């Protein structure tokens, strides 16, 4: 009998494929076709797709609803769950609900603070943080118990992921937190977008020293962009982004910025592919989701492997 696996993403990682994930943002509205259209464009080019949970604290269709719609279109989805808007009651309830809908991957996050969104006057929750949410979800899945100790007859089934930021400070404390996420039960990681490849290499070196790459799969974050303005904005305003000046200068000098953006993304993919302990990439183009298939093809990552 074949070994049991929770999700095809997990299966592909365990089989040693270099995995490709990408990301979609749900609509500010209730249109299911918005999700379906995005799903059709990605189908076949990626192994799994994250669907964000009110990212940058802007109200959008819920991640779980969007993931269900996209799953019906044939995509393997990764729901995102943040601690900003729900307490432990709501979070556990959503994990149960998502699993009952057949959603099998979850990226568990603390979440962007609401000052980044349009509802600055909202009250945040942060009853738990990402590490605690991972621990709680892990106990629900593996032990069949809720945080309050109640046992479930039918526990949720999910492959748990988390975020890692190789560029945030303080480095050593961030590494402690990364280890804690693994200890709590995170099985795969998606990293912050990599522009500073040297810093990423250094981070991976430290990860390998601690043997952490053997305890969880690490997917390197790639953010294709075609705009100097976007790079400058990210450098200045996006918390935890490290964009070297050379990257911006290179984009400024490019004649065809779209082509340059793709080229830069492909180069980064080729670099991270060589690094021991990197199990795949996570593509997260902002407002340029249609470029994902191009990047995947140009990086030689198409077609994607099938799972029986």
């Amino acid at each position, binding site marked *: 009998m074949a070994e049991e696996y929770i999700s095809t993403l997990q299966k592909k990682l365990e089989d040693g494929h270099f995995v490709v994930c990408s990301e979609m943002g749900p609509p500010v509205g209730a249109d299911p076709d918005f999700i379906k259209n995005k799903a059709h464009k990605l189908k076949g080019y990626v192994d799994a797709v994250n669907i964000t949970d009110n990212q940058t604290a802007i109200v959008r269709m819920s991640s779980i609803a969007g993931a269900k719609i996209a799953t019906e279109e044939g995509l393997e989805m990764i729901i995102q769950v943040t601690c900003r808007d729900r307490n432990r009651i709501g979070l556990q309830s959503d994990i149960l609900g998502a699993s009952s809908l057949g959603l099998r991957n979850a990226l568990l996050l603390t979440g962007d603070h609401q000052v980044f969104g349009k509802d600055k006057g909202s009250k945040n929750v942060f*009853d738990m943080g990402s590490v605690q949410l991972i621990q709680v979800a892990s106990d629900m899945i593996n032990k069949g118990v809720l945080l309050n100790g109640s046992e479930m007859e039918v526990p949720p089934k999910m492959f748990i992921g988390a*975020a890692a930021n190789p560029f*945030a400070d303080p480095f*050593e404390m961030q590494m402690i937190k990364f280890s804690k996420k693994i200890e709590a039960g995170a099985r795969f990681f998606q990293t912050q977008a990599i522009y500073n490849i040297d810093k990423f290499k250094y981070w991976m070196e430290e990860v390998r020293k601690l043997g952490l790459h053997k305890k969880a799969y690490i997917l390197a974050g790639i953010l294709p962009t075609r705009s100097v303005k976007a790079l400058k904005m990210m450098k200045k305003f996006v918390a935890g982004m490290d964009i070297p000046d050379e990257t911006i200068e290179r984009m400024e000098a490019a004649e065809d910025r779209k082509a340059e953006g793709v080229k830069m993304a492909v180069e980064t993919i080729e670099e991270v592919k060589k690094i021991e302990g990197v199990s795949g990439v996570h593509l997260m183009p902002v407002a340029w989701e249609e470029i994902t298939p191009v990047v995947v093809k140009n990086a030689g990552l198409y077609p994607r492997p099938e799972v029986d």
Partner: protein
Amino acid sequence: MIVGEQKDLNEIIDMLGDDFDSLLIAGCGTCVTVSMAGGEKEVEALAEILNMHYKNIGRDVKIETATVKRQCDFEFLDELEEQVKRNDLTLSLACGVGVQQLVERYPDKIFLPGLNTTFYGATTDTGEWSERCIGCGNCVLDQYFGICPIARCSKSLLNGPCGGSQDGKCEVDPEIDCVWELIYNRAKKLGKLDELTKLEPPKDWSTYRDGGPRKLINEEVYND
């Protein structure tokens, strides 16, 4: 201490409205005196400005002032009795606790808040106060080397910094120190970094206001 800041003058004027002829401005001599928002000095200054305002718009308003030691204790509110009773309105420059104590002590009178009660904090510079405690009801300072992540991390994270911490600053505002940078630096200096590797389970918030409005009884002195 409790830190407060005076409400905007126009807001105070709007709040007071037109339906009064006499006003008592009541200050508080404790916390909000230290945060320079509701002590004797601020009471007198506000009285002067309001006097000028009502004079300018041709209204005849009589303004009295008084500052007691603490508005949050009934024993100090007794001395305000005559002034409270002979004025149509009282504007309290105490924290929200003081305002409500006045209401309870003199239920037939109207009291309005002249301050916004902001937080429990410390004086961190001349004219600067910073939040240091949220009164969660179950102190964890022993675990974090005397620096509180509940009050001072924008997300109250107990297991380490979020990914938005850069150059020692919080993603919410570069004016805010990342408290995890402070905790980390202190742990490192004390040679106790390994203590921060322990998984911290979700906090029991029932001792905070999530358990409902709180009351504290000291059985030794309480008489019911």
